[in-house]
């Protein structure tokens, strides 16, 4: 075996080990969701044929934890957050990247500074504000709050991409009489789908997984998926198998999204890496 081939085998083995390392917890999650509680608490876990069951999934779908409504709420909130973040973030990112805004750099830093406050610090003031606005336990309220930490990152991701676009394109549009808005809309956006996808997936996953604000700002009607999953853990008893089954079901939409849009996402990150 020559050195080149040996190197490729080494790289392949390394990557395989990395993939296995990454996937093992997910594999164990799926296995746990299919085992009876008694089998899960055995030491070592009892993997005999009698231990396997679909009962955890049946319980989750029929239980009071209401995973179905939570999935719907999470989908609406995450999609809403993503679309608004992309609409506002792309415009803001382009403006900060290309337009001569007085203090533009400071504004960009200020946008990022909002990320520096731990959520727990602002949660009670936020609760009071949302309460006064009548936005507690509403999907709109969650979207507004999620935008506060998703939008700054989206702006920065897209700002970096827009800065890397060759200015000649926009100059050519300007020569043809296009305004800044039309240049952005008709020239820049059509070539920006990959980074928009990448930023959108980031925004969606951030909103989908958020827990702290959802705990505080929801009550009855707008429990999100992470809240629904956490409800399988009580003080005295934890329904481990059902919790795992709920986690598997909750992961499916995000996994499906990643699979469907994987090419666009990869292209987005790759272009961002090269151009940024």
């Amino acid at each position, binding site marked *: 075996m020559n050195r080149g081939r040996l190197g490729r085998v080494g790289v392949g083995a390394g990557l395989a080990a990395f993939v296995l390392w990454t996937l093992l917890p997910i594999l164990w999650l799926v296995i746990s969701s299919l085992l009876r*509680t008694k089998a899960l608490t055995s030491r070592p876990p009892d993997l005999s044929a009698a231990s396997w069951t679909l009962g955890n999934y049946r319980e989750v779908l029929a239980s009071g934890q209401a995973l179905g409504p939570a999935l719907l709420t999470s989908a609406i909130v995450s999609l809403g957050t993503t679309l608004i973040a992309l609409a506002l973030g792309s415009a803001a990112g382009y403006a900060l990247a290309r337009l001569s805004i007085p203090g533009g750099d400071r504004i960009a830093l200020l946008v990022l500074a909002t990320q520096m406050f731990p959520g727990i610090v602002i949660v009670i003031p936020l609760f009071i504000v949302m309460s006064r606005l009548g936005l507690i336990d509403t999907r709109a309220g969650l979207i507004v709050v999620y935008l506060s930490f998703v939008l700054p990152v989206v702006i920065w991701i897209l700002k970096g991409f827009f800065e890397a676009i060759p200015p000649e394109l926009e100059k050519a549009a300007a020569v043809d009489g296009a305004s800044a808005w039309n240049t952005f809309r008709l020239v820049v956006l059509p070539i920006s789908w990959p980074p928009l996808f990448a930023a959108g997936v980031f925004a969606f996953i951030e909103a989908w997984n958020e827990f702290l604000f959802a705990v505080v700002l929801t009550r009855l009607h707008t429990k999100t998926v992470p809240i629904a999953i956490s409800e399988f853990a009580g003080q005295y008893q934890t329904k481990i198998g059902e919790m795992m089954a709920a986690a598997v079901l909750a992961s499916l939409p995000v996994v499906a999204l990643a699979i469907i849009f994987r090419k666009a996402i990869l292209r987005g990150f790759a272009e961002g890496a090269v151009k940024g």
Partner: protein
Amino acid sequence: MHRARTMLSVPTNRRSILKGAAGAAGLAALGRRAPVRGVSAATGLSVLSPLAPDPAPPGVAEFAIPEFDAWKAANDVDVTYEAVAWPQLHDKMATNFASGTHVHDIMYNCGWVPEFAQFLTPMDAYLPADLVADLPPSSFSTVGWDGKKLGVVFSLSLLTLFYNTEHLELAGLKEPPKTWDELKGYAKELTRDGRSGWVLNYGAPEGIGGVASYWMTFLQQAGGTMYGADGMPVFNDAPGIDALSLMVEMMTNGSTDPGSLSYVGINDATNVLTAGNASMMMNWPFMWKPANDPESSQIVGKLGSAILPAGPVTSASIDGTDAWTIAATSAAPEKAAELIGFYLSPEVQKKQWLDTGWLPIRLSVLEDAEVQAAAPNAAVVLEQAKLPYDSFVTPDYNEVTQALGTEIQKALGGAKTPEEALKDASDQVTEIVKKRLG
């Protein structure tokens, strides 16, 4: 679980109407109905409760549903439940109280009564004499503050000893341990064949059910107490050190499941016992049912229960304090008290045990033959209740147990001696108490 409506207090003025209109438009665009708003009125009661299988009322847990429906109809009361996972209860309540909005009429409390005392309605005037006479007098010790009854416990939840009868038999041990010396000896003897003699969750320092509260159990067994007459900590003494030394000795000699240091919740430790991987633990009465459920347990029919082994002075326990309280802001405290009275009625209390596994608190129900037959551990809990079971709850209980529990964990992990850990804990708790007492 019953679906329920949101009940919010919302001021109506021009600004709120404009905001409401904007919000409603946004919500309509999102394809979701606007939240139902209302004010806690005479016919509406909102209740904050844990989700089942933690201790929960009829309508959240599946028991006494026909009685609950009949009570609502007879009293013309509409009950709205917000049931959340137990770990979220305290923070949700604290946020509601701190913001002054979205406060429920009735809320579950567990050792937090002194902390939230200023937000709660004294219940002395609302509790019927026959109900009070049927409750263990000591059950009010953890739901009172400044001489007022601010809540009422609905489940007799004291720590007692649980053990695997088969393991004891195999080891030639005829009866459960009655003293600390026997406890240590049994735990060592039972540590064999990959099993541990003792298991508990020492992974969380704070709260009732945290490592600090377990140490308080041993502290009382050694004749010690947390606070002196002036309210200052006095636990850094011989009984305190004896209590911690016992825990440390059982950890370092290998008879405690080493995972105990990382088990955060009682359910983690319970799982070890019900899997047959440990022989003894102290636990709450709820354990009886899941440990005898073949779906989740491998020790069905092999669980024994006894009062906790006595230390140098006595056997003692702590109180889980599963209680109902009424908010000071409730618009209908009388109706709220009536609902709590329904939760504590003998028929509901009886079904609470038979259908959910949570012991009743009413003495007459605890002594009921059907309850006794279905709950062999009820008699043990009643016996334990005759002995000291102070949980030492104060407004700063969480802060105190966080500081104390962290030091206890250091001793259990071998980073400090029991003496060092208790001295450092005492210094920290003194500062916390001084801050409270001003």
